[in-house]
């Protein structure tokens, strides 16, 4: 009986990283940079979800909102207030841009929870692009608006003079590391989380099958119910 159990454990085929493979949607040919793949599919689904969430739900422009419209207004109000609080009234120019990033990350993460789905934000290529977009936007806008004065951000004037060069170095490093940390935080979390979920889900299936097989085998062999081998081997 113990060998049967081991056979099942050995036959346990869990491939937690398979879900991150980029596959072409049509055919099996080579993948070029423009090939429609599952990346394309799930980004497209994200766009459709966005349109359903923010455009279709508000098409009646009701003064008293429906459920869908109030969800759309909640998203709008949440990001609008955040941008206004952080960047001030002038910063609202960047509101559509920030809303784009937020909605994309939000919808991709939520859609990744659908079983058998492809999580686009689990790829560093995606999250790194998002992080670099923000990085370059901040840097370029900073230099455009403040000129060379933008660099005074690294020169902490409220610190003692002795500490300032050291702090400037630390600030500089943290500024350039930030896109890396942003992209790894999102992509790494999603990849690890989804891999773990896949492993657990695979265990659940394998254990379910194994338990049924053991009960059937036990009845056939006529062994006692609490034989130590039986308990340990599973």
């Amino acid at each position, binding site marked *: 009986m113990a060998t049967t159990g081991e056979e099942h454990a050995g036959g346990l085929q869990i491939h937690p990283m398979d879900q991150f493979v*980029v596959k072409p949607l049509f055919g099996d040919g080579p*993948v*070029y*940079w*423009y*090939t429609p*793949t599952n*990346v*394309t599919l799930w*980004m*497209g689904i*994200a*766009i459709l979800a*966005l*349109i359903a969430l*923010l*455009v279709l739900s*508000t098409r009646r*422009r*009701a*003064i008293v*909102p429906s459920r869908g*419209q109030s969800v*759309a*207004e909640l998203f*709008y*109000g949440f990001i609008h207030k955040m941008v206004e609080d952080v960047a001030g009234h002038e910063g609202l120019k960047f*509101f*559509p*841009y920030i*809303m*784009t*990033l937020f*909605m*994309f990350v939000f919808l991709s993460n939520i859609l990744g929870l659908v079983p058998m789905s492809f999580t*686009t934000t689990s*790829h560093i*290529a*995606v999250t790194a*692009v*998002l992080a670099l*977009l923000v990085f370059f936007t901040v840097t370029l806008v900073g230099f455009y608006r403040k000129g060379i004065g933008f660099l005074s951000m690294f020169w902490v004037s409220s610190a003692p003079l002795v500490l300032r060069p050291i702090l400037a170095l630390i600030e500089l490093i943290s500024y350039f590391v930030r896109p890396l940390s942003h992209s790894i935080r999102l992509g790494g979390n999603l990849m690890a989380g989804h891999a773990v979920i896949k492993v657990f889900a695979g265990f659940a299936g394998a254990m379910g099958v194994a338990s049924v097989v053991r009960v059937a085998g036990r009845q056939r062999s006529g062994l006692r119910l609490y034989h130590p081998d039986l308990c340990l081997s599973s």
Partner: protein
Amino acid sequence: MVGRDTLLAIFWLMVTLVVIYLVLSRIALPRISAVLADRKGTITNDLAAADELKQKAVEAEKAYNAALANARTEAAKIVAQAKAEIQKDLDAATARADVEISAKAAESEKTIAAIRDGAATAVAEVARATAAEIVAALGGAVDAKSVTAAVTARLKG
């Protein structure tokens, strides 16, 4: 070297972000902001209207109270007037009745006095006649003069 998958993901991400940006900035965000502004305007207008109506209600209440007070004083005036008129009528009627009563009383007194006088003379006559009959029955000569004098003297006594 950057793999094909990476280039592909970057390309499609760019496409997606541009589409999302266009959808948001052209359609969704202006629409939602218009709806929110609309709602804010509606709420402000409604509040103002409600305030106005409240003001009106207060004024109406004031007017109502004033009208009520007016009506009260008016009613009191009317009541007082009616009372005075009734009092006047009553006084007149009482006076008339008093006059009538005193007239009737005087008449009655006169009648009573007449009856009393009549009674006194009748009594004297009857007494005289009776006395004359008694004297005659006792066998004395009836002297009309002396009988009358005696009866009159008795009646006076």
